[in-house]
């Protein structure tokens, strides 16, 4: 039988098959029962306009098309809708989204829209400062999560926070140049308070993180303190201007400076302790194959120690200026100390990674280290001398280095 004949035959079969019909009585009863069920389970309230639109779209547009268009279309629509003063489900739902969520780009797009629609620079700076606060909340959420992607998301969130802090710092410069002293001072005060809070909370977040996770958070913390110092600088510059008097009191300024100095002192104490620990472990007796590596480490520690001393001296000078009410020189001192500690942190982190790598790649050294530390002091006297010298710098040496601040 050819295909044509088969098709013809199947056509006749189909016609016959269509003579098969269900019992009319059964159909009638079944239909009535079904519609009773439908009536009983139909929602009572009429659909809202939004739901009606969704029903039309569901009925007329294939689902895969809706899914493809949903992302960018909703983002664009939310921008225009917000500009017209309205809000849609996606925009309000995106407010709670976190980095990595699919609604997060809508959240950022909404923030950008609000910034674009804010014309006054001081208002824009205040709004951006609020958004920086959101980045902190997102970081806290990510840090508290147990997601597999936590390290990546934490890095992303910290990076976003750092970038936003740098942005507000630049915006502050623009506000200082173009706005009134009053507006600039009000915005700077708000930014100073916010960034101080952010720096403190980032410090708390770091306590629950691994060493690898701390790196990116430390950078964000540095940016927060830096931005706070810049804001404080604007306050100090404008405090004697007539229309900005009363915006920030002398006591508030003093408190802000004292808080920043205390924060830096705590950082110095913590890092010093850490540096000494590193130095101590590197001189406990190791095999010669790794001694050069640890000498380099000790060299880095010496530079780190002198840098810490420089930072400490700078803070002491800032305190003295505060006592003498010479506030205008304080921001530069704080920034110098902050930069010094940032350099030490980076060097310490790099040294830690080198130490970890050397212990992993040289398993023989690990055994020798244990033995040498107790029964076999370092055999090479010259190296020992070198090590001693580099780990215990004289006061004279340190003073000389203090006078030449590290780059």
């Amino acid at each position, binding site marked *: 039988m050819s295909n044509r004949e088969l098709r013809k035959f*199947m056509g006749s079969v189909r016609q016959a098959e269509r003579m*098969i019909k269900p019992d009319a009585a059964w159909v009638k009863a079944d239909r009535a029962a079904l519609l009773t069920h*439908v009536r009983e*389970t139909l929602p009572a309230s*009429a659909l809202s306009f939004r739901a009606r639109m969704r*029903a039309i779209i569901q009925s007329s547009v294939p*689902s895969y098309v809706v899914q493809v268009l949903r992302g960018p279309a909703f983002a664009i629509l939310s921008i225009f809708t917000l500009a017209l003063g309205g809000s849609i489900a996606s925009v309000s739902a995106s407010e709670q989204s976190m980095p990595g969520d699919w609604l997060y780009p809508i959240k950022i797009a909404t923030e950008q829209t609000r910034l674009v629609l804010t014309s006054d620079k001081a208002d824009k700076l205040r709004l951006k400062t609020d958004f920086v606060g959101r980045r902190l909340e997102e970081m806290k959420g990510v840090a508290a999560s147990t997601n597999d992607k936590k390290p990546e998301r934490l890095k992303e969130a910290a990076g976003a926070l750092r970038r936003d802090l740098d942005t507000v710092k630049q915006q502050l410069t623009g506000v200082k140049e173009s706005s009134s002293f009053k507006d600039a001072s009000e915005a700077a005060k708000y930014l100073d308070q916010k960034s101080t809070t952010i720096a403190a909370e980032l410090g708390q977040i770091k306590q629950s993180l691994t060493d690898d996770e701390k790196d990116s958070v430390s950078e964000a913390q540095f940016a927060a303190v830096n931005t706070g110092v810049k804001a404080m600088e604007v306050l100090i510059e404008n405090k004697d201007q007539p229309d900005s008097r009363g915006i920030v009191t002398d006591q508030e300024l003093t408190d802000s400076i004292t808080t920043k100095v205390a924060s830096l002192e705590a950082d110095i104490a913590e890092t010093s302790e850490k540096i000494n620990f590193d130095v101590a472990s590197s001189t406990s007796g190791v095999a010669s194959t790794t001694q050069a590596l640890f000498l380099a480490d000790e060299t880095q520690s010496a530079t780190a120690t002198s840098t810490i001393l420089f930072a400490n001296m700078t803070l002491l000078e800032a305190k003295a200026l505060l006592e003498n009410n010479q506030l205008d020189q304080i921001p530069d001192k704080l920034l110098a100390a902050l930069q010094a500690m940032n350099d030490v942190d980076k060097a310490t982190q790099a040294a830690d990674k080198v130490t970890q790598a050397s212990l992993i790649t040289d398993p023989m050294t690990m055994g020798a280290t244990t033995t040498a530390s107790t029964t076999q002091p370092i055999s090479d006297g010259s190296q020992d001398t070198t090590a001693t010298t580099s780990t215990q710098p004289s006061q004279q040496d340190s003073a000389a280095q203090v006078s030449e601040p590290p780059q």
Partner: protein
Amino acid sequence: MDNLIDQFQLYRLRTKRDEDAFGRIYDRYIERIYRFVLLKLPSKEAAQDVTSEAFLRLWQYVQEEKGITNVRALLYRIARNLVVDYYRASSRTISIEQSVTFSLDVTSYDNEDRLSDQNKGKRLIEAKADLALIVERVSRLKEDYRDVLMLRLVDDLSFQDIAIVLDKKPGTVRVIFHRAMKVLDNLAQQNPDTPFHV
């Protein structure tokens, strides 16, 4: 055009809360779905149960506000899955021959009309016999081939609709259909004396 009518009914159901709209969908497809499952199930009662359940499941889809782009294909798909569940639950194996062993009362719509039209009845019996033979041949095919053939040639669904029912791509369905026709033709040539009543 059919789909547009169905979509309009769904729209009325969702927005106007018009229960009669669902009744109209029921009227459009009750016979087709009943026939579809009757050919696969051992009894009229089983076919009625499965048909009722298929429309109830469709209503659930509507209530859950899932996007329904093709009502007909969805109904066939639901019905097909229910037939599978039926055999799975009763631990029976699907017997194609059993599924097409009609008795006269199974196919009755109006007994009086049937009895009064002897030619129609004779034709019907012959067609059923032919169908059984075709099904017997088709049963030797792979399940996919069988399903596509029956849905296309007996239920007259488009390749697009068959793709939705079987959860395959339309292109794949076309390929399966042509291969199935080729296999069926080979089977027919192996049995040239088959008394088909063309």
